[in-house]
């Protein structure tokens, strides 16, 4: 098959090419000798764990950081000794940052055409021209949005589209998308990927930075993998599998075995019957047994989080019963739920789960202050003891207990959040999207902890819209759609693709 082709056409010139790029920040090496190349119209994936240098590389290309030494950037036939943000913009390089950098109070039109009011002397704004620019770009994306409504009226998925539209204003030749799907559901992601394909057909190169491995393989032509600031390699995307990518990104191998076991005779910790909150979920019934991990999956908006918040006492059911260890319970607030032994790891660790600027120790004991109190005051000795115990038990890598939680990596933060709830001695632990923002390598560690806790007898509800997560880690999987449970699966008797077909149908 693979024969030399001496007469083949010369390879097309790359649109963007960097070679031997190194960046150091005060002695810390962020990138070392990295080369990177993108062809015109190519969909290229830049993969790597947090801290592997992906963002640094993008910032070098857009002129935010200056690389050390002799590194040169060539883009669209021009060689730049030193890229600047203005030159990058003018040359057609666009970045859609993970936080989108949009203006929620401003109208859709202004968000898209904002470039028109930046730069140069102060001048009159041509609102009509801005609307026209916005309308045209949205039409190019096959979308129409109400141009006059403030962006805050739109969902994350549509804001994403606005961000893409903004990037297309002017002559875009290459668009970097930093974790564009992090907060999208599968259906919204598909729509986004369709847009990426459209751009690619128009000859615009798209560089996709993503954690989600399945979609990466689906969309990309080639993939550049970084690890610890170094280039691991460049691969044709269609030859990759998620486990191979994980291996390349982490330098380790992970076994992906279904962990499911049967818990048919174990006593039920939680039994829910006919639970209903109109508009959120209807007639939900299920049982979680001692030592069992129950997975609940479904698209965003299926009512999973609402259900979890109801079990946790933060919302009241309109109908139905919740039984804990056989006894019906009625929570007035989540304080009642915590006292009854229910713990809920919130889906949004950054804003809800942990108090970022506070110390690891304070975060860890906040839900179980009763245990560290003596005579109405917090005993530092008891607090340190409790923290040390859980830090050891969950293998959390910390410097000092007093360091701010924000100094930890995503995976370690999530462990602190789990430890916070375990310190309350729960009988039921609800994990809502526990791996969002956690590196692939650290995810496995989180699930090892979950498996150990289950083996110790804790009942666990694992909520996630990443199907492989629930498939590999839960004993049973419930599928929720439009507020109802529409299917129950045993991972031992169904293959992942079948489950995916059932859920995404």
């Amino acid at each position, binding site marked *: 098959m693979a024969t030399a082709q001496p007469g083949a056409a010369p390879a097309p010139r790359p649109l963007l090419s960097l070679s031997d790029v190194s960046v150091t920040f005060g002695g810390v090496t962020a990138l070392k000798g990295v080369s990177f190349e993108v062809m015109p119209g190519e969909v290229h994936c830049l993969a790597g764990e947090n801290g592997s240098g992906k963002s640094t590389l993008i910032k070098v290309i857009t002129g935010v950081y200056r690389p050390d030494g002799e590194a040169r950037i060539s883009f669209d036939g021009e060689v730049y000794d030193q890229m600047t*943000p*203005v030159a990058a913009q003018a040359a057609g390089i666009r970045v859609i940052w993970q936080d989108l950098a949009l*203006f929620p109070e401003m*109208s859709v039109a202004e968000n898209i055409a904002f470039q028109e009011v*930046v730069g140069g002397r*102060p001048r009159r*704004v041509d609102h009509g021209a801005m609307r026209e620019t916005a309308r045209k770009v949205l039409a190019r994306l096959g*979308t129409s949005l109400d141009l006059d*409504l403030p962006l805050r009226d739109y969902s994350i998925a549509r804001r994403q589209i606005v961000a893409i539209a903004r990037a297309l204003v002017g002559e875009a030749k290459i668009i970097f998308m930093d974790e564009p799907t992090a907060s999208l559901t599968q259906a919204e992601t598909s729509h986004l990927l369709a847009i990426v394909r459209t751009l690619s057909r128009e000859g615009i190169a798209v560089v996709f930075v993503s954690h989600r491995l399945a979609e990466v393989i689906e969309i990309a032509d080639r993939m550049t993998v970084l690890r610890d600031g170094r280039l691991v390699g460049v691969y044709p995307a269609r030859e990759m599998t998620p486990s191979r990518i994980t291996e390349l990104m982490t330098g380790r191998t992970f076994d992906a075995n279904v962990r499911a076991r049967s818990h048919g005779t174990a006593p039920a910790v939680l039994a829910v019957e006919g639970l209903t909150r109109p508009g959120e979920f209807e007639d939900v019934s299920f049982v979680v047994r001692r030592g069992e991990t129950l997975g609940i999956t479904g698209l965003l908006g299926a009512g999973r989080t609402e259900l979890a918040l109801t079990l946790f006492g933060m919302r009241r059911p309109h109908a139905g019963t919740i039984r804990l260890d056989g006894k019906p319970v009625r929570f007035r607030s989540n304080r009642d739920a915590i006292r009854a032994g229910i713990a809920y790891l919130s889906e949004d660790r950054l804003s809800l789960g942990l108090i970022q600027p506070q110390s690891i120790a304070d975060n860890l004991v906040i839900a179980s202050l009763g245990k560290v109190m003596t005579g109405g005051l917090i005993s530092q000795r008891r607090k340190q003891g409790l923290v040390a115990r859980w830090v050891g038990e969950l293998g959390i890598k910390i410097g000092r207990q007093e360091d701010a939680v924000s100094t930890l990596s995503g995976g370690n933060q999530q462990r602190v959040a789990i430890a916070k709830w375990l310190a309350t001695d729960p009988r039921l632990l609800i994990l809502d999207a526990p791996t969002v923002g956690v590196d692939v390598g650290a995810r496995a560690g989180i699930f090892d902890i979950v498996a150990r806790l289950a083996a110790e007898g804790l009942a666990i509800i694992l909520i996630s819209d990443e199907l492989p997560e629930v498939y590999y880690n839960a004993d049973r999987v419930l599928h929720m759609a439009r507020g109802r449970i529409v299917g129950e699966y045993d991972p031992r008797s169904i293959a992942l693709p079948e489950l995916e077909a059932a859920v995404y149908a």
Partner: protein
Amino acid sequence: MLRRLQTQTTEMVLLAVSVAICLVLSLASDRFFTLVNLFDLANASAVNIIFAVGLLVVLIAGGIDISFAVAASVVQYLTALALAQIGGGGWVSGLLIAGSIGILLGAFNAFLIHRFRIISIVVTIATFNIYFGLLMFFTRGVSIYDLPDWWTGKVILFERQMADGNWAELRLPVLVMALCVFATWALIRHTTTGRQLYAFGDNPEGARRFGISVAAMQFIAFGWLGLMAGIGGLVQAHYAQEVVPNALYGRELDVLAAVVLGGARLGGGRGSVLGCVLGVLLVAIVQNGLNLLGASPYAFRMIIGVIILVAITLSNAQIGKLFATRSEGRAAP
């Protein structure tokens, strides 16, 4: 038009409430809905509206300012001294001097905020005390009555004698106010600088990534408020026909409350000139009405407090929902 109503709910609600209150007041008091009273209302609200549109710009840019009212007092004094030096001056030199000093005082706030990265409320509480302390110290609390004639002389734009013999007069402050309102509207709505101010208040990091200068935004916002404070100070002294060092002390909170009532968001990115003007007018109408009805001035304070609480509670969530037909699902994908 319907679209416009939807995106300007706060303004429309304010307008409706103001009209309703006016109706009630015209029924309750036969003196409310008279040209004399309405012109008085306009003359008396002019200075607050000038301050308010200045403060609006700072709020839109994500800042807050407590010091502008006492800064206006400082401007009055320094302007009076400067005018005495140049032998009296006139409206042009007066506005130039007052405006420049106002801008300088505003820029000093911006400098402290930007240079030392201190949040604006802390900086302006500090400068509020510094300005007021210096003013009282150097003036020993003594007022100036000996002002140039052009400054204190009544300028009537429009007058008409009513059936009862009273004169209804629209005075100069209203014209100055109209110019300030128009200039601010043009600035924030129709210049690139204005849109950058909105963007900066809405998402400072997002604005920075567009290459918008953070320093420029702070200096423009606080400089504009300084300019308005300077002009407002000049006009207030004209209206009162004297310069009293503590005349404007406490005015900052009244104006701030009215601007927030007008829909400006503490934290930046939201607010309109129309809403701001309506906010000041609503407060003024309520005060005027209570006066006419013979209510205690303390009742007014209490009622304004309640109005602001209700307005802010309603404005974000409920009102929007009541009027909105917009829903996420409606827009085509």
